[in-house]
């Protein structure tokens, strides 16, 4: 008899904790200051749209049942997902560098950014780098495709040279060109625009 109460407590505890960990949960998170996107959760039994920060839904795996959506407190989320959130890598870092007209030579102010980029690469190492070259709309598609490629290659070359000169390990670097097909500032064709003469560096 004296074991009955602790035994019942234990059974209740196991039962409840079992329940708590047996359901799947989806939580929509804020994205910095930006408005969150949306997630559509589709199961065999229905659909639930999450489009608000901290909105969540539970799914009963065995029956495919969806709960009503609930807005969770961040402490509750931390309780379930703390370990995952702690291990989340810092998102990639981006830089825009600008060029002289019709040239793969960086503008002086962009050249000054290279040491900062190197510092970020070293801090995040090991990394993957990507450099995408762009051009304004002066000249043909083919000419600008080639110019974008030259710009990307020039930046990739400078970065890896700088890295090597500072004893860093060369980073796997992917270069590509979007020519005049992906303008930062929309302009008509055959229009000089300094802000479109750029390369985007991504440090992953």
């Amino acid at each position, binding site marked *: 008899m004296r074991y009955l109460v602790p035994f019942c407590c234990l059974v209740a505890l196991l039962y409840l904790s079992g329940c708590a960990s047996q359901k799947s949960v989806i939580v929509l998170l804020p994205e910095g200051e930006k408005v969150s996107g949306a997630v559509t959760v589709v199961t065999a039994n229905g659909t639930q749209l999450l489009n608000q920060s901290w909105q969540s839904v539970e799914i009963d795996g065995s029956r495919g049942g969806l709960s009503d959506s609930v807005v969770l407190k961040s402490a509750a989320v931390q309780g*379930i997902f703390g370990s995952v959130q702690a291990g989340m890598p810092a998102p990639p870092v981006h830089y825009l560098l600008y060029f002289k007209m019709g040239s793969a030579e960086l503008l002086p102010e962009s050249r000054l950014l290279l040491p900062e980029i190197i510092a970020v690469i070293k801090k995040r190492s090991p990394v993957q780098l990507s450099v995408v070259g762009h051009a304004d709309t002066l000249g043909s598609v083919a000419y600008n495709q080639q110019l974008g490629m030259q710009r990307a290659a020039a930046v990739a070359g400078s970065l890896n040279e700088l890295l090597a000169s500072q004893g860093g390990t060369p980073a796997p670097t992917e270069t590509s060109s979007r020519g005049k097909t992906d303008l930062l500032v929309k302009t008509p064709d055959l229009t000089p625009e300094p802000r479109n003469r750029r390369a985007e560096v991504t440090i992953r």
Partner: protein
Amino acid sequence: MKGCGMRITLVVICAVLLSAIFASAEETRPIGLVKTASGDAFILRDGVRLAAHPGLELMLGDQLTTGTGGALGVILRDDTVISLGPATQTRLEQFAFEPAQGNLGLVLRVTRGLIEYLSGKISKLAPGSVRIETPVATLGIRGTHLLARIVP
């Protein structure tokens, strides 16, 4: 006539080879890399088990797995960031990031466990082309950031 048949055969062979080359563009180059790994964390590739370590490059079809107490963080080539908690199993089922060709898509399969997911460029350029598939539900992603615990 015989020469013509031969020519047709050659053209067909070339077409098949070319399509194989284009189809495999994403299958032969890395689609991302491991940024953080701790405890029991590994990549299963073509039946081979690789211990996960920062800098290890990821390929299409890789199965990312953690044991009890393990953790794994990766970044894909379109800037998607994914973190796996303990006792988690996922697979990079589909990945296409070729904006110039309009070839965009991402399917992540999560069999069980805990993940955090932050959308990259595929989701921004082609909303509706990103899915997380799980045994209990399919998640349609529109440029976002989410947490999921999947209990099959």
